[in-house]
């Protein structure tokens, strides 16, 4: 994290209460042993490690947590959760933070990952099943990263491993309905993000 950055404490209970309720985890049980960060395969790429996220939630530093890349980079591999001596499911904590970020519409620090999830879910909402061709094509256009996956897509097509026609499932109407009933529908056209260099 950036050193010397001004911190903005929010009422302690706010963030922690939400996370505890949403995830069912006891945040104050964390005594900062750091086993989560030590085992996290993606810790090296995060601006705040999992241990820091836990401490920041305890301190109610909501803005810093919500703006971290951590909550988006976590892929729920659950290594942290399975090793935590305080038996905290840290991956579930990360999940609850993403849910909060989505609910509050806060700007994700990893815009492409948010865009990917959005695109993936829109594909399911439309067809009832995931469709990799639609997903990859839509994501590629929206992320404005047109050539990144071209070669691989060609190879997959030539191997007959990418179904071009989307699936037809009777249950797709039900799926669409569930998206609307659970208020999970997010804009089909989110603010387009610029292609990031350096990755």
């Amino acid at each position: 994290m950036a050193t010397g950055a001004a911190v903005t404490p929010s009422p302690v209970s706010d963030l922690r209460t939400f996370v505890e309720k949403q995830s069912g985890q006891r945040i104050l049980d964390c005594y900062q042993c750091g086993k989560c960060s030590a085992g996290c395969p993606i810790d090296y790429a995060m601006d705040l490690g999992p241990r820091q996220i836990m401490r920041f939630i305890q301190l109610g530093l909501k803005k810093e947590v919500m703006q971290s890349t951590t909550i988006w980079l976590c892929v729920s591999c659950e290594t942290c959760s399975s090793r935590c001596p305080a038996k905290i499911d840290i991956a579930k904590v990360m999940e609850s933070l993403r849910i909060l970020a989505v609910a509050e519409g806060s700007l994700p620090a990893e815009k492409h990952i948010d865009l990917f999830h959005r695109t993936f879910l829109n594909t399911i909402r439309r067809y009832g099943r995931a469709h990799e061709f639609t997903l990859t094509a839509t994501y590629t256009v929206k992320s404005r990263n047109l050539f990144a996956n071209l070669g691989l897509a060609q190879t997959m097509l030539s191997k007959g491993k990418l179904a071009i026609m989307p699936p037809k499932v009777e249950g797709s109407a039900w799926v669409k309905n569930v998206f609307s009933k659970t208020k999970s529908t997010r804009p089909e056209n989110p603010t387009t993000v610029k292609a990031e260099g350096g990755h």
Partner: protein
Amino acid sequence: MSTNAYAYYPGCTLHSTAKEYDVSARAVCEKLGVGLEELKDWTCCGASSAHTTNEMLAITLPARDLRTAEKMGKPLAVACAMCFNRLKVTEHELADKAKLDAVKALVGEDFSNTAEVVHLLQILYERRKTMVVSKPLKGLKVASYYGCMLVRPYEITKFDDPENPQMMDKLMVTLGAQPLDWDFKTACCGASLPLTRRDIVLKLSHRLLVQAQQLGADCLAVACPMCQFNLDAYQEAINQEFGSKIKIPILYFTQLAGLAMGLSPHQLHLDKHIVDPMPALKNKGLA
């Protein structure tokens, strides 16, 4: 697990990028006398994206498929490790009556969350002692790669040891292969990040492939379409990025089981891989 009749949930990828997993799973199960009846009109489990957005969505999508299996009165055999994980998590979450009631309102009041969910690896593992191995995979060094979704969280998936699982290794012994003892059995490959943060996938996949190579692995055995894709499709990019010379076929455990049971490479779709497994198999006289 005494039954031989299962409802079968392939999952979305088995209809495209992981077609060879579907084909080999069906072929092997047929040979074993295990019936797989595809779940009628199944829909997506929501994968890694649904539980990022909305918990209710994440437990309702798999519940529809659990209900269908329940109606069929058969345990649900799942191929994809991610689907298996989401179905297990849902089953677990719905032990909470309030959540179950909320989900019932969306999937149907007759749903009671009683379907048993098992992974295909468990089905083969349980039957390894009665398996007829006509073409043992003699001399084939296999690094069993379990990934994350099968083994964690153990409290929910109740699959195998989350740090050092043995199920696939023991199956490989039955098949006549030589399983390798290595460090990355349950290390993450980069999961759903290839389109968004390819750099992370390359780095994580590289470190585990390097060790497999150093130990002389002829192939990796996998049980997850996401892992298979990351490790197979990006090997060339990994070599470019890190200057390595890795060339390790990434095969589904069902393909290896099929070979040992006398099925042909063609029947197991061994030509669908990006890294061609045929040279390694021919080298050992296995194809």
